[in-house]
């Protein structure tokens, strides 16, 4: 029994073991299968995680792109607006430009149509433009003169120094002369065909920020004007001669009569008439001198002379006037001043200044002539205690026909040509003249001229 039982029990156990082993195997198999499944699901999970990551990245990238796109869109809109503005501005600018062009065209046409000859040169004086009137006047076209300076236009009779002074002055030099707006001078030019003509040339410097960028020169044919000037001078000469001939007879007759035995009354009459005839002779002389200065015909004729004798001669000539007006006269002039100058012209200058001083000084006043020596120059002054020249009119003193407004009523005599002549004559003697004047206190004219001309 027990054995049987044991065997039976063992058989049962084996059976049971078999079952358990089988079950175990099943479970193991199932576990393996499960492990396999688990493994593969990890792979899937990994893949899923990866793809999720990528998706997130993509999403981020997309967001960036979207932001960029939006930004670009905004920029595009703004630049479109800006472009529209620019277009508007451009349109305005175009209108302005057209208007400017029209103006420029107008100026261009005006310059082209001008009857005055106009040329434009660079600072080195080479031509860049000439208008048709210029070509007609000179005979040269723009092509013929381009890159040339005006020297070739000059007549051979003009001194070279004079030409270079006017035309070849360099621009740098002129920049230093601040207010040199224009220069004007007269020349003789030669046409292309060789004929010569009188011309007045005016040169304007066109500046930008002080630097000369170009010159405009205007040539005016003054041949006709010159001819008229000559005719005028001839007429004045002829008229003066016709006036002088009878005047000489009157003057000499009165001068002769003064030496006869006359009653006091007769003597006064004859003396007055003689003085008047002398004044008339002086006026004719002044008119002739002015007329000749205008046409450049007065040339100084220097001689050896002494200054004090010239002053004495002039003073003596106006003795009567000085005594009549009871004017005190002081002369301070060294006896030893020898000069080599045009004594006649110097006498004219002094005569005019002295007679003016007497004329425009009230009775009982004083006149002082004083002379100073300065190296190569002599300084001659004529000072009076007269009516003076009003300050506002002092700039006009050297003008022809100028008379101070404060003396017109006081002195009927006077034609306003004396001082104009004095200024021109001082210049002819190589000197300069100036004055100081105070109303009702007096005037001092002061001029310097070289001892030797």
């Amino acid at each position, binding site marked *: 029994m027990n054995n049987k039982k044991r065997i039976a029990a063992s058989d049962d156990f084996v059976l049971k073991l078999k079952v358990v082993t089988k079950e175990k195997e099943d479970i193991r198999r199932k576990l393996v299968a499960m492990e396999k499944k688990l493994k593969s699901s990890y792979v899937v999970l990994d893949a899923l995680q990866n793809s999720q990551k990528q998706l997130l990245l993509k999403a981020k990238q997309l967001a960036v792109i979207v932001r960029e796109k939006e930004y670009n869109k905004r920029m595009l809109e703004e630049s479109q607006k800006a472009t529209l503005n620019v277009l508007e501005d451009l349109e305005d600018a175009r209108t302005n430009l057209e208007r400017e062009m029209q103006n420029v065209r107008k100026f261009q046409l005006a310059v082209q149509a001008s009857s005055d000859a106009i040329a434009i040169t660079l600072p080195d004086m080479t031509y860049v433009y000439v208008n048709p009137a210029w070509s007609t006047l000179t005979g040269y076209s723009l092509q013929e003169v381009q890159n040339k300076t005006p020297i070739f236009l000059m007549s051979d009779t003009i001194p070279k120094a004079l030409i270079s002074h006017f035309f070849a002055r360099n621009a740098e030099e002129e920049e230093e002369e601040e207010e040199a707006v224009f220069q004007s001078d007269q020349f003789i030019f030669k046409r292309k065909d060789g004929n010569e003509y009188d011309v007045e040339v005016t040169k304007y410097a066109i500046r930008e920020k002080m630097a000369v960028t170009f010159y405009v020169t205007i040539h005016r044919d003054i041949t006709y004007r010159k001819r008229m000037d000559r005719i005028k001078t001839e007429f004045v000469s002829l008229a003066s001669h016709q006036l002088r001939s009878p005047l000489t007879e009157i003057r000499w*007759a009165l001068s002769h009569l003064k030496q006869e035995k006359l009653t006091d009354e007769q003597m006064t009459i004859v003396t007055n008439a003689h003085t008047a005839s002398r004044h008339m002779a002086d006026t004719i002389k002044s008119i002739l001198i002015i007329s000749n200065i205008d046409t450049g015909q007065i040339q100084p004729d220097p001689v050896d002379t002494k200054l004090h004798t010239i002053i004495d001669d002039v003073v003596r000539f106006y003795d009567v006037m000085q005594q009549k007006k009871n004017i005190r006269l002081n002369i301070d002039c060294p006896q030893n001043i020898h000069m080599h100058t045009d004594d006649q012209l110097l006498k004219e200058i002094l005569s005019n200044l002295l007679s003016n001083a007497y004329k425009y000084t009230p009775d009982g006043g004083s006149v002082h002539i004083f002379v100073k020596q300065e190296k190569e120059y002599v300084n001659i002054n004529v000072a009076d205690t007269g009516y003076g020249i009003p300050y506002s009119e002092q700039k006009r003193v050297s003008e022809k026909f100028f008379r101070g407004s404060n003396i017109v009523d006081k002195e009927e005599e006077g034609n306003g040509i004396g001082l104009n002549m004095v200024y021109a004559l001082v210049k002819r003697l190589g000197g300069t003249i100036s004055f100081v004047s105070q109303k009702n206190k007096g005037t001092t004219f002061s001029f310097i001229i070289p001892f030797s001309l």
Partner: protein
Amino acid sequence: MNKRQKHILVAEDDTFLVDMMRKVLSKHDVRVSSAFNGKEAINLLDTDPPDLLLLDLLMPHVDGYAVLQHRKDKKSRFPVVVCSNLSDKVNRDKCKEFGVKEYLIKSDMDDEQLWPILEKYLR
């Protein structure tokens, strides 16, 4: 007087002025002859040569320059003082070329100023 009297020839077409000159010069020890135009003056230069010629420029028929030319052609040495109412440079220069000593403007002087100037050239 031993010394020969100086002879002044006045060539001037204005008879009144010639009279005045004569009056002024007669106060001094000189002999004055006169010609009323250039032709007369030239004749006198040949027949009665002066010590000084006082010459007007503008005269009828033959003018002062013809007289100056004649003097030059004859190589005469007597001094000439021109007394004219022409004051332009052309005439002054022309006279200078002819060796004229002095150029006077008639209307700018008095008759009595004549002698001191002429006297200078008679010495």
